[in-house]
């Protein structure tokens, strides 16, 4: 057992998979000698050398495209976007090429690619980059959830980060992997030394409860757990469900929890309109229709850019937002 930070869990997954399988390689900006701006790739360059830990020019489309080509030839590149926000530059490569190559080649080519993206706001201020403004704070997962051929993963704990990244690397499809950068240096968990795999497509109940289900992703999971802890003392029993994988989505687990409690809140760090919370709300409102005692409420970011510094809180959902939403669905 060793206490592992979220960022260390990512690092461990990369080390283990690169050791296990020669075809796994890392590619991105400053991931070699620098070890990554957040340190997620630290030590890889020293261990695996420049042919497997590939620093690139600042060319997000170019190196993502190159990684796609490598993946088509049987390698398993793990691309790091330095910030999730920069994936917009590589958007065409991912949505036009990676997501459709298996389809276009009638199955002849697979694209076992992982794109790791440090996303969201780091209000804790630990590690690199506190509230870094509109271009270094976004949570763009929903875009990729609406692109068939991609899988989308978003772990909220070190254990999930480790186990899901390993699964993502072994998957034969392009996987968009979202790492919440505020969690890198704040979330820690005791993890076994032994192999730890979390399968894609399985939700996890982070806290069981009976009165209301909160479906939360990324940094919202921790916030929801503390709200749930507080509400427990009032006799309110909150179930906290983390989908972990957004595509493919574990609809069964979500609908089952919603059917059990009859009251559902969805929370994510991305803005509400068109966010993945809409999909979850739609799935719940359909699948658990007859069990719902209240409308599904979304506690998400406001539809605005993320302001710099702590003004970011003006956009983000926080514990108060989540608590208010819970109380609202309980009233109905």
């Amino acid at each position, binding site marked *: 057992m060793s206490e592992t930070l979220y960022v260390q869990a990512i690092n461990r997954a990369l080390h283990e998979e690169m050791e296990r399988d020669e075809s796994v390689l890392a590619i991105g900006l400053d991931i070699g000698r620098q070890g990554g701006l957040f340190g997620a790739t630290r030590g890889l360059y020293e261990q695996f050398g420049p042919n497997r830990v590939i620093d690139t020019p600042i060319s997000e*489309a*170019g190196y993502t*495209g190159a990684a796609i080509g490598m993946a*088509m030839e049987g390698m398993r590149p793990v691309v790091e976007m330095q910030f999730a926000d920069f994936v917009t530059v590589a958007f065409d490569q991912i949505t036009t090429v990676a997501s459709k190559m*298996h389809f276009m080649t009638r199955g*002849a080519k697979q694209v076992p690619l992982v794109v790791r993206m440090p996303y969201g706001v780091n209000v804790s201020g630990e590690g690199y980059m506190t509230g870094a403004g509109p271009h270094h704070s976004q949570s763009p997962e929903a875009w990729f959830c609406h692109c068939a051929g991609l899988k989308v993963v978003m772990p909220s704990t070190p254990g999930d980060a480790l186990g899901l990244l390993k699964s993502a690397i072994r998957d034969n*499809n392009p996987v968009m992997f979202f790492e919440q950068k505020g969690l890198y240096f704040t979330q820690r968990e005791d993890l076994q030394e032994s192999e730890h795999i979390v399968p894609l497509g399985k939700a996890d109940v982070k806290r069981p409860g009976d009165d209301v289900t909160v479906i939360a992703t990324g940094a919202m999971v921790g916030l929801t757990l503390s709200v749930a802890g507080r509400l427990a003392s009032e006799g309110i029993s909150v179930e906290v469900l983390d989908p972990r994988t957004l595509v493919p989505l574990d609809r069964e687990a979500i609908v089952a929890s919603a059917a059990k409690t009859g009251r559902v809140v969805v929370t994510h760090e991305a803005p509400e309109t068109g966010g993945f919370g809409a999909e979850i709300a739609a799935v719940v409102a359909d699948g658990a229709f007859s069990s719902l005692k209240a409308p599904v409420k979304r506690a998400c970011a406001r539809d605005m850019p993320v302001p710099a510094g702590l003004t970011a809180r003006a956009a983000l959902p926080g514990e108060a937002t989540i608590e208010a939403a819970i109380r609202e669905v309980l009233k109905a």
Partner: protein
Amino acid sequence: MPLEPDRLVAMYRALAGSRLAEEAITDLNKQGVLRGHHSGLGHEAIGVAVGSAVRDDDCVQPSHRSGMMLAHARGGYSLREAVLSQFGKAPSAFGLGEGRPRTLTIVGLVGTWVPMSVGVAMADRLKGKDTVTVTFFGDGAANEGAVHEAMNFAGARRLPIVFLLENNGYAVSMPVSEATAAPDFAARAAGYGMPGVLVDGHDTIAMYEVVEEAIDRARRGQGPTLIEARILRWEAHAHGIADVRDEEELAAARRTDCVRNLRESLLAQGILSEEQAAAIEAECRAEIDAAVEEGRKPGPAPEAPPPLTADEAWRLTYAD
């Protein structure tokens, strides 16, 4: 090393055959029998030169112009298949799979495919192979950012790749002279630390030599080359799109002729006789005519890939 006479005759056969097939397909589009073809008339020497210079295990990324002649010149993709593919009765030259010389599938966004082909070259190098990738794109696509990023990356890592820029003077209606102030695209190579070569794309032998040298260089680990092949597009961008050029400009384009050039040169050198040339043309024509007839007949050809079913399409979205 000068090309052996029989190689030259084989190239002429591929070139003349490509021309005749392109003519037939372009005509079928004009007649309304087929639709949407991006005619490669005028481009034939480029595909034939590359197809003749690469090995089967080298990887080629075709563009929408030269894919057919490229596949044909590489061997194993007959004129019959080239024609039948237009009727959906044979595999498309733009996405050849198993059992064919190594070909990357075309992507619908121009320029977008170039980083991917760089990645293939990189994978080959990392695996220790001595193979080379040749990636095609047009003068229009060259102005896409993805092409810049890909060329720079390939230069920086000395990857075994050849960038084959087909400059046919236009991107749909946009003349090269308005799309860039560069005197030529080969000049861009210096900005990526690779040689840039400008070549007359109507001259099959010159094309072949330039391509062969670039491939050798890449194979020897000396890195990429950018080749700009200048030709003139004979037809409109694609069937169904009006041409913005006036008659005079079009006529001038059609006076350039890579097939005639090679024919005359081989005749002059005594490598080919008039009779041989006529026989080659007649053989090609017969194969094409038969294929057109076969294509126009209703019903699938027995060797055609089965059409994609709804269910298969659905399952293809994800790999297992």
